[in-house]
């Protein structure tokens, strides 16, 4: 059914909650996902995985497996070492990382061999017949133990497990700490957790030997940085490696940025066996051997004046990237360089950054990349500071928030916060929560012995990664050397075309994973061309052989509303300009005398002199002679939008790591059952400034989705290992994602400060609450436990963890209180 805009906003689709155009197909089960695709003569892959966290692979004997029914071939580490090269890295150190283990396994679940058979059942049968001789080595999974003297070394050629270290300094942290009235410090642990998209990694690969072309269909989400990385691993050429992505992806959340090793593995299997090969990762494999965010240990101190002015932050961070550094790591550490100091006017930072390898599954982008870890330590330490100063946590935040009149604001670490009204967001959150009353109720409840807590978090939500940030991993000396090629940029391309009958198609390369890009593109183009969204056909998916793409192409870092939407709007404007030029020529009027109204190009003040868009577009195709002199026939325009602020890091390691920055102010009220440690979320308020909102319903969905993901990090999800390196969360029984039942209703608010850097003033919101929720809930739980003298310094908080804190607090609350009062 055609949709109509409300009368009050005729021709204004942007800003309306129009229905998602994607949903009809998805809800009727007609989406086209990778596993729906079949090639003639296609075989299926299954992967033998290491049961050891750390072992030398002495031999792999697949002879029996090769004799089994339906088995076409087996790809071993030896083949991989012969047929491919290690993936290029984002650090100087020579680290050998292949798509499966070549001579040593470094985590439980690492691929050892790949069976290619007629179906997945037969392939899994054959796995059981492969004989592998392992020589187990001592494992290490704890990031602090991995850097100790005498720790097992994962990569003997490196001689250390530290794959990257930067001692970064911004401002004058020593002076800040010397001047401080108070200094608070704490050690924090943030867990390894993931996103578990409904659709796991899915790949089909085919090798065509005559033209030497490898085609890989997959649900890869970008960034297409991984295309050249895969080209190098496969020892091929860019124009011989074809990545194709289907129109539908069942969720990605950053995790599917890290699937290129599985893509290369499937390609090698196809190349070796001479048949097209499909690899559909199962859930156990996804949980144990795909990707996750890093777990992080942080030692952090904050220095402040008595009045609550925060002077500086000093910290040592250790990111656990697992068995290998996999591109784009060590980005978890550096993606948030520009927003390291959050929404505050803090001027000084000492940041000792270690990136460490251990016998866990490798890591990569995970919704909120690096920011969950960052804000957990930052927003917790700010609460500890407030405690020490006996300040209200809302007040200490308000005192240090960047004032509204200081935007655009350049941070000490090089970020340029484009726009925002942080104070208004915090005030709105407090008002929506009825903060003063909530505190009174808390006071009353505490007197009755109830454990009620209120937590806050104010965080900057970066969107549109500038790929230049990753080079903060290198020293400025190396970055200025001749052998180094600088990196920068955040561009995205869109194409708008009109066919001979005047119909509009928009081609996007953003490989949407459920975000609703098709809907939003239709809204934007409908506005630009004064037509209905129903008349805009959006073509998604991706093909590196036929699309105009770049390194930064893809959907990640909440970039679409900033850069994708801008590219689409600008391409549509180029089309509009061309239509107007043709009409001006036809109507013999000045270009400036024309306007586009309701699908017609008309003369200002004389609307009866008009031509329909369809007529003008038709002319550009059917009557090319009738075009203005020198104009190319046809109607199509591409536009690549980029942000000039996305530059490489400077000599002082400052970089505007993201192009735009949204803001979130969250408030949680929880009550803990003192007998069981169970937490009930009584109220959750989240206020966002993500610029101008294109589709409020979609933004609401993003906030709910990211909230539940953050809730997982706070209370439920952890990719846990035991000390011997065995993995403990191989199914959804043990890896606990929160469900709708666990999710409370949210109180959502918006402050809309348009971004001056994007065409529509919009910016990202897709990751948002994943960054704020873990720490906001941790702060609320900590506040609830405050009367017991307990503190929160690690996640996730399961009932038995909280119960233990209550036990410890109850048994020793008197001395702890006394210590606090000092």
């Amino acid at each position, binding site marked *: 059914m055609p949709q109509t805009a409300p009368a009050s906003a005729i021709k204004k689709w942007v800003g309306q909650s129009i229905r998602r155009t994607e949903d009809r197909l998805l809800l009727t089960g007609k989406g086209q996902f990778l596993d729906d695709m079949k090639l003639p003569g296609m075989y299926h892959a299954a992967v033998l995985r290491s049961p050891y966290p750390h072992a030398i692979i002495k031999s792999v004997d697949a002879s029996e497996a090769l004799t089994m029914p339906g088995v076409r071939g087996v790809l071993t580490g030896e083949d991989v070492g012969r047929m491919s090269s290690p993936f290029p890295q984002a650090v100087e150190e020579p680290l050998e990382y292949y798509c499966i283990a070549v001579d040593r396994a470094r985590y439980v679940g690492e691929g050892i061999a790949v069976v290619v058979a007629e179906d997945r059942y037969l392939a899994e049968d054959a796995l059981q017949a492969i004989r592998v001789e392992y020589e187990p080595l001592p494992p290490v999974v704890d990031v602090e133990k991995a850097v100790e003297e005498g720790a097992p070394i994962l990569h003997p050629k490196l001689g250390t497990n530290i794959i990257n270290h930067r001692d970064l300094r911004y401002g004058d942290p020593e002076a800040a700490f010397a001047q401080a009235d108070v200094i608070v410090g704490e050690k924090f642990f943030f867990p390894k957790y993931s996103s578990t998209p409904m659709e796991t990694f899915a790949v089909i690969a085919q090798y065509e030997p005559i033209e030497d072309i490898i085609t890989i269909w997959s649900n890869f989400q970008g960034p297409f940085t991984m295309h050249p990385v895969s080209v190098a691993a496969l020892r091929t050429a860019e124009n011989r490696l074809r990545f194709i992505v289907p129109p539908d992806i069942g969720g990605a959340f950053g995790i599917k940025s890290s699937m290129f090793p599985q893509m290369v593995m499937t390609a090698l299997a196809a190349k070796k066996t001479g048949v097209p090969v499909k690899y559909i990762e199962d859930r*156990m494999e996804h949980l144990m051997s795909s990707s996750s965010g890093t777990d992080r240990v942080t030692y952090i101190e904050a220095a402040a004046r008595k009045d609550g002015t925060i002077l500086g932050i000093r910290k040592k961070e250790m990111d656990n990237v697992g068995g290998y550094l996999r591109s784009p790591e060590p980005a978890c550490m550096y993606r948030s360089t520009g927003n390291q100091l959050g929404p505050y006017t803090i001027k000084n930072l000492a940041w000792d950054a270690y990136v460490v390898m251990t016998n866990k599954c490798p890591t990569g982008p995970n919704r909120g990349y690096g920011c969950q870890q960052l804000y957990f330590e930052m927003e917790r330490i700010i609460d500890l500071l407030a405690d020490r100063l006996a300040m209200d946590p809302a007040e200490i935040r308000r005192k240090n928030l960047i004032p509204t009149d200081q935007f655009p604001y350049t941070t000490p670490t090089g970020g340029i916060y484009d726009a925002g009204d942080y104070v208004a967001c915090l005030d709105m959150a407090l008002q929506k929560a009825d903060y003063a009353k909530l505190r009174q109720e808390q006071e009353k409840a505490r007197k009755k012995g109830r454990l009620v807590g209120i937590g806050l978090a104010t965080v900057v939500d970066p969107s549109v990664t500038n790929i230049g940030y990753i080079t903060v991993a290198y020293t400025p000396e190396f970055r200025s050397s001749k052998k180094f090629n600088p990196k920068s940029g955040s561009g995205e391309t869109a194409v708008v075309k009109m066919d001979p009958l005047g119909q509009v198609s928009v081609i996007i390369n953003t490989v949407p994973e459920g975000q609703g890009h098709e809907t939003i593109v239709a809204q934007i183009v409908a506005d630009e061309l004064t037509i209905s969204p129903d008349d805009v056909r959006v073509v998604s998916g991706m093909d590196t052989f036929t699309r105009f793409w770049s390194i930064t192409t893809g959907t990640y870092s909440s970039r679409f509303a900033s850069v994708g939407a801008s590219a689409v709007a600008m391409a549509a404007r180029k089309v509009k300009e061309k239509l107007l030029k043709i009409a001006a020529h036809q109507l013999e009027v000045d270009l400036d005398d024309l306007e586009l109204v309701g699908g017609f190009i008309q003369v200002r003040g004389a609307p009866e002199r008009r031509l329909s868009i369809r007529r003008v577009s038709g002319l550009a195709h059917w009557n090319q002679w009738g075009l203005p002199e020198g104009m190319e026939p046809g109607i199509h325009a591409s536009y690549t939008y980029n942000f000039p602020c996305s530059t490489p890091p400077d000599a002082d390691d400052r970089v505007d790591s993201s192009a735009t920055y949204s803001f979130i102010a969250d408030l949680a009220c929880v009550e803990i059952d003192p007998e*069981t440690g*169970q937490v009930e979320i009584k109220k959750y308020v989240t206020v966002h400034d993500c610029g101008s909102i294109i589709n409020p319903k979609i933004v609401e969905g993003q906030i709910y989705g990211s909230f539940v993901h953050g809730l997982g990090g706070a209370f439920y999800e952890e990719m846990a290992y035991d000390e011997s390196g065995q993995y*403990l969360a191989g199914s959804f029984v043990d890896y*606990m994602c929160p469900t709708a039942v666990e999710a409370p209703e949210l109180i959502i608010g918006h402050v809309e400060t348009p971004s001056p850097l994007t065409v529509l003033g919009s910016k990202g919101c897709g990751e948002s609450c994943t960054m704020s929720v873990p720490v906001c809930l941790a702060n609320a739980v900590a506040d609830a436990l405050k009367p017991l003298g307990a503190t929160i310094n690690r996640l996730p908080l399961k009932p038995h963890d909280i119960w*233990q804190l209550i036990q410890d607090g109850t048994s020793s609350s008197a001395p702890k209180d006394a210590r606090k009062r000092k």
Partner: protein
Amino acid sequence: MKPPVFKYLRVASVQEAVSVLAEYGGEAKILAGGQSLVPMMNFRVAQPAVLVDINPVKELDYIRPQDGWLRIGARTRQRSLERTPEVAQKCPLLAAAVKWIGHPQIRNRGTIGGSLVHGDPTAELALVATLLDAELTIQGKGKSRTVGPADFFEGVMATRIDEDEILTQVSFPVIPPRSGYGFRELCIRHGDFAIVAAAAQITLGENGRYAAARVAVSGAGAKALRIRGAEEVLVGEIGSAQVLDAAAARVPGEVEPIGDLKGSEAYRREMAKVFVRRALEDAWSMVKEN
């Protein structure tokens, strides 16, 4: 996560099932709702050579009050227990417990017999069967026997049923008059396996004192455990917060929990007490209202 090859046989009657089981012995496994067995086969943890599908066995799908018992065919779906009014009337504790089993999709397929034979130590149905001294009827080739929970549940995923036998019927005693009950469960998320669960049923005598009391917990041992000490404390007493406290205080000494990721030994021991106390509170408030 694909199973190896297995032979699949559909049977239409108990008799047929029993003779197939006798033929294949230990190689065969009964497929009822498949909610535990099929995932275990996909993980290749269970690799039965023969699957005997009893889903067509209609004679095992019934809920029938009879002689003071609620008799339930072993292939009856958990969803039927949840939705059949007789269960809520005659054995309301069972109806309350069933709601805690997984999610509706699981209960739509899962059967009462499948859950009991599987022997998961935190299963709700095993807890209720243990609490109420359910009678389990087992059919072998040419022989039938009826046992109580003590002779049926053995330990973690272990039940005393022979390879050639099939559980056919489970009977629960109808709740006596002037009784109250409680079922409480602690899990991290809704629908999860319980960390601990507690069930209680108390019956008031004419004199206003507790004439009978039943208390059991799961998640605090290798199988569901009756807490006899707590029952002894309750019987003969007049209900009060102190009496319930005293009964619950007996729990830690009578359980044998094993710690894991979801709860340490100490936590489970304490939670067994807390949840028994809460289940008793629910039961007490029901009889108080009488």
